[in-house]
């Protein structure tokens, strides 16, 4: 390992051409295993995506290493995030995959965070979340107008404070748009929120369209569930007729809250990262491999079968979103903190 680093330094120092650098990356990865450290348990959304990638990514990395998934669960993937930042060797053999809401968490001073989001090396994100609010027909909230006009607070399901969706999104919509909302939080996952909605315990909830469109398909088709609002930078093609939340924002602060807390968060929610200080040539190789995998026909077919949507977020956008978080106005930050955690 050390010997390799020396060799590499020498090569760079001598100013060798790109071709030979690619060859050295090739040598490095040959016969090795790249591990993707996933912060959630086997079988969940993050894991499914990572495993699909792992099956196809190896052949796009020079030297054709094996790619294995390792589940490091705990603290909403914070354990994995801290591990990738502090413990994992920055040798290009460890890729981290944890929830992007933690980056906002760092800015807001969430406890237990031991990383600096600005120092991670990002290799990409396969998809951004598209936040929608879906309600049951039985709740009577069949459109945003009815929602605004509701006399009593509309009960919405949540999971835990600090969860990007449903909790953060719902809280921000309530604060920014003044919608009548009573957040009922503590359900174990969006499936339970959905069950509670079907049983009439809550009216609905706000979380990713990728999940809603698959798991609530039947009810959406029959009209028993309706998507009344979305909060996305780009309107999802399947949601052309659903109004955008930001249009209802009355103040600059409200718009900013939605843009940072929901839109920005959606783009960086599923990033793949490398430990700080990973050699640049390997970072480059992994970025290219990541992009190539997302275009790989076999991967696309696998993903389609698992209903995993693909819509890569460019690394530049991710980096812009992250650095944007650190330039936020302190007043907005304290407002967000109040909205999300109180």
């Amino acid at each position, binding site marked *: 390992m050390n010997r390799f680093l020396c060799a590499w330094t020498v090569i760079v120092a001598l100013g060798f051409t790109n071709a030979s650098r690619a060859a050295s990356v090739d040598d490095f990865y040959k016969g090795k295993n790249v591990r993707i450290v996933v912060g959630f348990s*086997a079988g969940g959304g993050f894991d499914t995506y990572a495993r699909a990638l792992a099956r196809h990514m190896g052949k796009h990395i020079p030297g054709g290493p094996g790619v294995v998934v390792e589940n490091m669960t705990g603290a909403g993937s914070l*354990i994995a995030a801290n591990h990738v930042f502090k413990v994992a060797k920055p040798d290009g053999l460890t890729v981290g995959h944890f929830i992007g809401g933690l980056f906002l968490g760092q800015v807001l001073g969430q406890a237990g965070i031991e990383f600096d989001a600005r120092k991670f090396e990002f290799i990409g994100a396969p998809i951004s979340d598209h936040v929608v609010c879906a309600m049951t027909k039985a709740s009577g909230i069949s459109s945003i107008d009815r929602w605004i006009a509701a006399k009593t607070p509309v009960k919405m399901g949540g999971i835990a404070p*600090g969860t990007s969706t449903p909790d953060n999104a719902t809280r921000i919509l309530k604060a920014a748009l003044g919608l009548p909302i009573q957040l009922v*939080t503590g*359900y*174990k996952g969006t499936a339970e929120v959905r*069950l509670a909605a*079907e049983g009439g315990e809550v009216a609905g909830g706000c979380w990713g369209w990728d999940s809603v469109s698959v798991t609530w398909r039947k009810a959406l088709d029959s009209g028993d569930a309706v998507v009344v609002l979305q909060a996305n930078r780009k309107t999802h093609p399947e949601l052309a007729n659903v109004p955008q939340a930001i249009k209802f924002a009355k103040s600059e602060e409200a718009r900013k809250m939605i843009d940072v807390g929901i839109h920005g968060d959606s783009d960086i929610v599923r990033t793949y990262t490398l430990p700080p200080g990973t050699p640049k040539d390997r970072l480059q190789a992994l970025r290219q491999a990541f992009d190539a995998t997302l275009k790989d026909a076999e991967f696309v077919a696998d993903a389609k079968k698992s209903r995993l949507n693909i819509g890569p977020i460019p690394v530049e956008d991710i980096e812009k979103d992250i650095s944007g978080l650190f330039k936020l106005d302190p007043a907005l930050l304290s407002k967000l903190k109040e909205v999300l955690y109180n």
Partner: protein
Amino acid sequence: MDMLNALVSGFLQCFNLSTFNLMLIGIAIGFVVGILPGLGGPTAMALMLPFVFKMSAVEAFAFLLGMTAVTSTTGDITSVLFGVPGEPTTASTIVDGHAMARNGEAGRALGAVLMSSLVGAVFAGVALGAAIPIIRPLVLSFGSPEFFMMALLGISFVAALSGEDVLKGMVAGGIGLMLATIGLDPISGIQRYTFGHLFLWDGIGLVPITIGFYAIPETIELAVLGTSIAKQEVGNLGGVMEGVKDTFRHWWLVIRCSALGCFTAIIPGMGAATTQWLAYAHAVQSSPDKERFGKGDVRGVLGPGAANNSTLGGSLITTIAFGVPASVVMAILLGAFIIQGIVPGPDMLLPPPKGKLDLTYSFVWVIIISNVITVATCFLFLKPLARVTQVRGSIIIPLILVLIYLGAFAEKNAFEDMIVVLFFGALGWVMEKMEWPRPPVLLGLVLGPLAENRLFLSTDNYGWAWTTRPGVIGIFVLTLAGIFYPMIKSRREALQKARAETTPGEAEPGSRGLHFNLPTLFAGMVIVVLAIALWQSRNFGYRAGLFPWVIGIPTLILAFGQFARDIYGKEKKATRVAMSVESPVEVAPAITRKRTLSIIAWTIGFFLAIWLLGFSYAVPLTILLYLKFAGERWFITAAVTFFSWLFYWGLFEKLLNVPFPEGLLITLIKGGE
């Protein structure tokens, strides 16, 4: 008619050649996974998920469900034989099942647990098949308030799990509920009792606690007695057929526990980890003579054996009909549904032209058929399996230690879990010595989060108005009846007994006065820890603090009661002597002390070796040293060491790619290069 067609069509679909073959492969994998502690159904399923891509829907589920369905069945085998839970869902089988193995009745316990597992699986299949038309309206009529009441009903079973000493049992149940509050509070996100460790944010896992609680005390006892697992031979009475007959002897119990497992599992969050304890409690509660429970009563094996298998059926229904995964396994299954393009929901319960009931029925059939195959296969191997209990303790102990640490680590790949095992091993051992019941702790631990969550969801949503819902009142009445009926019954029986014979006085009056002995010390420590926990909780705020207060304060008061009884009460010397007569092996106190210290040293030493050298060096080294110190011959030592290392390395390192941490010393040496 349509339903009947679907039923038959579902059955036939299972016997398509490729489907059947895939089911057999699934069963074979599940068989091994079930037996190995730490390697659970969820992990196995997640690893197998990629293979599902190329299969048809029926094939995929025959494969996955076949695999899952047998894990609880074969997990029972490990629990019975070694006292190490093969799966988190088979922990309750240890209490009486392993006790039976210790009494030389391993064959009978295995026969009973397998037969009852089969009955449970078949019952679940039949009951669900019949209940399909009413399931959706039934479940939708239940909301968070009713779920909370069901959890409360479950917690009230603590009384039945307490054995002879209800007071100790209630304190133990309270401790379990308090342990369940460790971690991030799900409502306000406040950290409770995490001491700044991220590892504790998600609370402590059921697997390491159960392993520590049972496997470590059992290992210590094994070492102290210096026998094989079976302390004695009981001949045919301990045989497999006897256990099978037991299942039919206690037929109603088995059926009731099957029903209990299957129907409570419909509640999201109630998996087999919970239902097994409810079934165990029910077996105790409903038996007229309770003395032998915990010491090897076959009824304590039959109840959980049936329930942990019937649970799968119930969980499957919530998953199929609502797309709400009732457990981790079901969450993964849901992923497989999606891969197969199946959307769980009401159509899954409608006959073919409109829905996919035939597919649903094929699931039910897979559960039944795979259990039939597994149980039949197991019966072929039961005799040699039961013989494991006759192997010398000195050979078995190092292997059990390997299982303990592998099982603890591999569930979450967390090093800290091994520390949890040691801590709860010590606690479990002390509790056993002080005659505190352990099952209530585990019941509290599994039901605590469900109860707290649903309580807050209910009050968040409805204020206190939820308490007047008819379902809530109904379950509350049921809970009260469950608590008071056995009390009234036993009081009446006691009165009748008293009338029939004038009591000849308790065995020995025992000395009155203050006792500063070990039980007093333990009760005192319980008080101190509870008091500290309550003191800590003062900063939690109302939302996160309510549950610890509501549980902690009564538990503390009860613990004071126990302390008072221990310090100023009758010493129970007389009964303890009577109990130890059961064991045919007597060990002198001096030797007991020496052996106890020695096995504790080995257990801790093994852990240190893993910490310093990593698993790959620690496993062979510790086994080798242990066998040599126990005076085994070189040939046996070398063979056992080699094969256990091969098993560890081949399965966990090569096949499963478990990311074992490098030993501290190894890292230092490598870093120094």
